[in-house]
């Protein structure tokens, strides 16, 4: 029998159901590969269970708050259990969209213009009286308003006119303490996954996303038939090369390991923009990482084993 692997899933985040779907598929793949699998929900009994069961590694199939923001990573470091995916710092950086975007800018990776506003700035400082400055600050409408820390596009709204801005901000701020207002780039939406391997990071074929509603929001993501996908994306060679280069740069810049997925847009002028980076990409039947992997001949099980290999290697290094 191979190593004992705890698959962490569920939790109390808003993405619980998605995580349970990801986790179940991961657990099945690991079982098929011969590992002893321990599927675990994130409950107040988690630490006790981990200490009693002493798994060789944890596969993190959690999405959203606590799973993707460095919380579970920090806990597993403390418990001395190796885990899949980026470490504490990379997780925290990628999770905080304004911080990640600032790093992109400093590194010369294009990201759409944005501003960040906190709930306190509205409540305590009257920021709502300055909403007329928004178009000037980000380069005009349309814009996207979204929570500064949240996966799965919950609380995300496209805003075309000044009148819609306040309501979109309220919606985004119902998911967290800060919202970002980002210039909307009209063009081709892409998800570009990176998997670490023996020879360093491998960039998988970009996935092109065409949401039938025009907005790749929560419903479009998880409702069958709402979205068309093209793998590899229908891009020219030069653009493909740029997209792949940015994916790898983002992966390395944030200090990701094992796996990451950058979301990008190719503007109608051909410019490539990086929106954000996900450190615990979805692993459901309609998820983008497994789709990209399939396009270069990898099965779902290959992906799972490849991601797990990173954690097991670190266990070996730890001795």
């Amino acid at each position, binding site marked *: 029998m191979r190593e004992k692997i705890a698959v962490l*899933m*569920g939790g*109390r985040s*808003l993405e*619980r*159901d998605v995580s*349970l*779907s990801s*986790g*179940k598929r991961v*657990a099945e793949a690991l079982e098929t590969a011969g590992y002893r699998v*321990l*599927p*675990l*929900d*994130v*409950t107040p*009994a*988690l630490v*006790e*269970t*981990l200490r*009693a069961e002493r798994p060789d590694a944890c596969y993190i199939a959690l999405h959203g708050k606590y799973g993707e923001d460095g919380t579970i990573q920090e806990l597993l470091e403390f418990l001395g259990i190796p885990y899949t995916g980026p470490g504490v710092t990379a997780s925290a950086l990628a999770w905080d969209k304004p911080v990640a975007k600032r790093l992109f800018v400093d590194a010369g990776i294009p990201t759409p213009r944005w501003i960040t506003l906190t*709930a306190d700035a*509205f*409540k305590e400082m*009257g*920021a*709502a*009286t300055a*909403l007329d400055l928004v178009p000037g600050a980000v380069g005009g409408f349309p814009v996207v308003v979204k929570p500064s820390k949240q996966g799965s596009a919950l609380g995300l709204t496209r805003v075309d006119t000044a009148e819609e*801005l*306040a*309501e979109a*901000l*309220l*919606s985004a*701020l*119902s*998911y967290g303490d800060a919202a970002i207002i980002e210039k909307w780039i009209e063009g081709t939406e892409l998800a570009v996954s990176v998997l670490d391997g023996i020879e360093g990071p491998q960039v998988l074929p970009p996935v092109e996303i065409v949401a039938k509603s025009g907005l790749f929001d929560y419903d479009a993501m998880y409702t069958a038939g709402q979205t068309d996908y093209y793998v590899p994306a229908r891009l020219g060679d030069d653009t493909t090369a740029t997209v792949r280069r940015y994916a790898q740069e983002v992966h390395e810049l944030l200090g990701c390991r094992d796996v990451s997925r950058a979301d990008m847009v190719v503007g109608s002028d051909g410019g490539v923009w990086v929106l954000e980076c996900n450190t615990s990409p979805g692993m459901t039947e309609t998820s983008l990482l497994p789709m990209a992997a399939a396009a270069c001949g990898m099965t779902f099980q290959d992906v799972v084993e490849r991601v797990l290999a990173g954690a097991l290697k670190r266990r070996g290094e730890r001795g």
Partner: protein
Amino acid sequence: MFLRQERGAEMGTARIVFDRWDGRYARRMAGVRSSAVRDLFAAASRPDMISFAGGMPDVARVPAEAAAMAASEAVLHEGAAALQYGSSEGRPALRVTIAELMAEIGVRLGADDIIVTAGAQQGLDLLAKVFIDPGDVVVTEGPTYVGALQAFSAYEPRIECVPMDEGGMRVDALEETLTRLGPRGAKFIYTIPNFQNPAGVTLLPERRRRLLELARAYDIPVIEDDPYGRLRFDGGHVKPLRALDEDVIYLGTFSKIFAPGLRLGWMTAPHPILAKVLLAKQAADLCGSAFAQVTAERYFAGTRWRRVLQGLNRAYSGRRDAMLSALHEHFPAEVRWTRPEGGFFVWVELPNFLDAGTLLAEAVEHGVTFVPGSAFFPDGRGRNCMRLAFCYAEPEAIEEGIRRLAEVIEDRLGLYRAFIAAGALPEAQEGAA
């Protein structure tokens, strides 16, 4: 997809047990699911939690010895009959009792116009089974009873919700819906006219007549679900739809006038419909519990149940008053709620941008729970609404619970007010009910 009992089955472990049969269930079950949010917070509990979530009757006010006497008499006096299979339509004696109860609310029936069901809930399931083919349209109030949505959804209909206001279902909106659907364009119209679950509102007498006119004009059966009709605290009795039109299918229950633990309800409908329902019931359970039926016969044989019911109504009425006055005292001006004349529930409408689902997480941390409004719509509407049940907590607890809830809402509203003050949002909130 998952067995959620893992917490109960294996306390103190985070282990998840997968459903090994996932992927083999019938397609119709995909549309029927419990809310993840509710599962989640059902587990998270603190000792001083005040629940406005469940609509549970206060059975502690039903004298134990009265129930015990009815149950023991059932076995001692009816003997074998109480322990044997019975007829599918239910025991004749109980159906006579039900006919008497119905006469008191203005509906004249014979025992053979009635069948006994396992709660009104079974009636909903059986009606859905005999009427709904996949893709059929059924018309309900929006919001409506979760259990009805669950019962109907299993038969894969398309559910059309008609909006409500303080006077119950808006019959002008019903007319628009029926005009769009055309004659026989829906399999039935489902309504809870008295102290509606979850909205707490009562259908006005003139709207009852109009609803029946429309149903006749468009040739669509009406299902009247009336679990709370006898829990009126003030205002005059309003005649049930069934008293105005013999074609109305009426569902009643012993759950609120005796005890839900007996699982006894009834249905009256035109005989051809009853015959179909009876066939469906035979497939479901052959016959209802004879033991429970005899117990109910005995319990309702005397007059004591009337005093018990009066006592229950006094208690519920006091709790309703406690909730309404606490809402008035503590809730922010931007929030609206209904003022029920009976039943179990108050329906609360928050400003549009507030999501009651995310609010619930905070409320639980503050020691108070409720059911988010989206549970009562088939299509994700009602996100800014919540149902508060006043039936179960004592008045002091209700006051404290509303105070805690107000704190959570107040905190969220700070942001909203900042936008209003800056003129970034229009001041007036649209909204009904």
